[in-house]
Structures are given as structure tokens and as C-alpha cells.
């Protein structure tokens, strides 16, 4: 897992306390709304996202920048690299 700090995101989706698979649905929805080169930040407390979000990035070809742990949730950073 890649741990990162102070990444500047262009868009944030706060899905803390929302149930699985909201992290994937939100990711899919938000990635369509941003431009290539922009960074999406997903806030979630769902442990399953630790596998799912990097996996989704590998599958779709978008860049998984890394995660930052914050209090009781995670911040995931994804750069849109595929139009």
C-alpha cells in the first residue's frame, strides 16, 4: 500500500459511514465528472476499500496515488488518467 501526505485533490467525495459498495459506485460516478489529470479524493471508513480501490484503478487504468489515514477513516487519492 502506498501511503501519502498532503495530496491536493480537485474533488472530494465523503462517503464515511456509507455502506459497501458505495465506495465503488461513488468512485465510478465521480471519475466521470472530472477531467483527465485531475485528482479525486475519496473519504471512507470501509476497510474493504483498501483492496477494492487500488484494484479498481488497476482494472480501469487510472492511477492510484495512495492513501492517507485520518482519525477513523481513510483518504484515497486517484488521478484520472483515462478519458
Amino acid at each position, binding site marked *: 500500500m502506498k501511503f501519502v501526505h498532503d495530496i491536493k485533490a480537485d474533488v472530494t467525495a465523503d462517503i464515511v*459511514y*456509507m455502506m459497501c459498495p458505495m465506495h465503488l*459506485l461513488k468512485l465510478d460516478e465521480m471519475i466521470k465528472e472530472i477531467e483527465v489529470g485531475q485528482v479525486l479524493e475519496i473519504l471512507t471508513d470501509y476497510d474493504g476499500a483498501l483492496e477494492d480501490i487500488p484494484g479498481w484503478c488497476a482494472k480501469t487504468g487510472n492511477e492510484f496515488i495512495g492513501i492517507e489515514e485520518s482519525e477513523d477513516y481513510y483518504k484515497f487519492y486517484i488521478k484520472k488518467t483515462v478519458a
Partner: protein
Amino acid sequence: MRKCYLDHVATNPLLPEVFEAMLPYFKEEFGNPNSVYDLGIKAREAIEKARAEVASLINVKPSSIIFTSSGSEANNFALKGIALAKQGQGKHLIVSRVEHHSVLNTARSLEKMGFVVTWLPVDKYGLVDPETVKKSIIKETILISITHASREIGSIEPIKEIAKIAKDKKVLLHADGVATTGNIPVNIKELGVDLYSISAHQFYGPKGVGALYVKEGLRIVPLIYGGIQEGGRRAGTENVPAIVGMGKAAELARANLNDRMNHCMKLRDRIIEGITKIPNVYLTGHPQERLPHHASFVVEFIEGEAMLLLLSMKGLYAASGSACSSKALKSSPVLLSMGIPTALAQGSIVFSVGIGNTHEDVDYLLTEFPQVINRLREMSPFSGGWGKGSEGDKCYTGG
């Protein structure tokens, strides 16, 4: 025998238009809203249409409405969901003493879990003083929960003033809007609350469905875990016919609100005027700032359950205390918190009118109710007074 339903705070009859709107979703349109084929899509569209109607009734965005199984679930969800989500910032809540059991008992369960609750006192009308709210807020306060109007005494709380204080102090405010939504104008943007509970059967929709308004961007821990229904915040396959019914009832309530209020207020005022003429009967709750369909009283020397029984034998259906406590045979905590003595609080009675009631219904009530009181007082050992320390000369309306 004439039958007069005067217990609209307990529940309302379903409107025929609402029933018609629900019917297809029991039969041909039975799809699961999460299915991707056309049956599922139609059910999903029906839910989203209902969400838009409910949102429109209280002037919020549709995405901020979460459907629940009842107003009680919405209240549980608001208190527990916010307490658990924000416990890292503090474990202090402020709750009024005139709340419905679904708020009172949820707050008590949170106390058992280690949260600290400040129970707000009320005045003789059952109203919370915004200044008391302000003084009760501490650094650890995460949530204030105050009913918009009590179903038991009808008083409408100063939510707008309390919301300003809450916003200023950066504390979340939840209001239980079960008694108000669909009965008085509710504009969340003007009220300024962060969470608001609603129940469909209080505005001629079906039972078994409610909603919680959650301000956009607010984190809330789910009560029910499972799938991604309601945006991943409330699991369980949606009760599609009930949600559709709630949407239709919301649409009708918004269109007809003023007519309904005017109709009910005329009947309510006649009931209050007629019943307060009976000796030793007092209006409870605020004389003006009250629900348009609500008339509540305490009757000295007799007991609420006995009145309900005799009234029901005459086809008059009413309530004593809150609907849920009428079988508990104990004095209502709401009335006690207003300073009404225990013995007098036993004589609580609530008449709540609806759009189906007529002036003839009120005539019938005003003819029969004094006879019921007289008959019970004749049997009452206290009819000559409470004895030592009599409370008989007190008026609880202050008027």
C-alpha cells in the same frame, strides 16, 4: 351510533388518492428498485419521484431525504447516527423533556452507552426556552434534539431561534417533525435544522414509512447495515408501495395545506372554547402557538383511560397522553415536566381533528363529553377536591 374519529395525532386515515397511487406497486409493479431490468427501474423511478415530493414538502434537496420505516426509526437514526458519528468530538447531547418516546428512550440508551444527556426543562406551556439551550451547550456538545411540536400538548417549539443558537455554537440540531410535517408549513431552509424526522401517516399517508432529512454533507452512522439502499445509509429492500404513498400524501399535503389548516383550526377553536367552559378542566399546551388540529386538556378528579372508555362507547375516539403511553397507566412525563401535578396529569385527554371532521362532530363531542365527565366525577372519590393541598384552583394555560 355516530362515530367521530378525533385522534388524528395517533394516525390519519389513508386518502383514496394515496391508496390508488400505491396499488400498482403491490401488484404489477412489484420489482425490486435495485434490479437493473425495467421492473426494477420503474420501482426506482417511483421511489425517486416520491423522494422529490417529500423533499418539496419541507423545501430541501431530494438527495437529503432518507426513507425509513417510521418516524420513530427516523428519530432513533438521527440521535444514534449522529452520536456515533461525532463521538470523537464529544459525548454530550441536549434533549428536551417533552420529546416522543422514540427520542427520550433513544437518548436514555445513549446514556447507557456512555453519552451524557442534559434534559432541558420546559415552561408551563411545554415550551423550551432558547436561552436555556444556549446555557446548556458545552465544548463536548454534539447534538441538540427538540421536537418541533409535541403530539401530547400541541405546543410548537421555537425551533428557528434554537437553530440560530446551535449554528452559532456549531452544534447540530435535530427536530422531530412528525406532528408538524403536513399539518403546518415546514420550510427547513428557514428553520435552519440539520436533521428532521417525518412520518407519512401523520399527513394521510400510509403507516410503516417515514423519512429523515439529513443536511447535505453530514456524516451519519447507519442503524441498519446491509446493501446500498438509500445511498448506503439505510439498508433493506425499500417498501415501494408505502414510499409511493408517502410521496403522494406529501404532494397532496403541500397543495392543500392552507385549506386543511383553516378547516382544522375552526373545529379546534370550537373544541377548546366549549371544553374549557366545563368546571375544573384546563387546556394544556400553548393557547396560540399550537398545532392547528390539536386540543388537549387535563380534567380534574378523573382518569384519562376512563374517559376514553366512556367516550368510545359513544363513538367518540380520542387519546390520553401520548398515544403510546395510554396503556402504561402512568402519568405522562410531558405533563409532569410542565409542572402539572401527578394526580391531575392522570386526567389527560387529547382531541385532534382532521379534514374528515365536521362541525356536527364538534357539536356531538360538546354534548357528550360533559356528560362523560359528570358521570365519572360522580363515581370519583376525589370529586370534592384532592383533599389536603388541593390543586383545584390552578390553571395550566396561564390564562
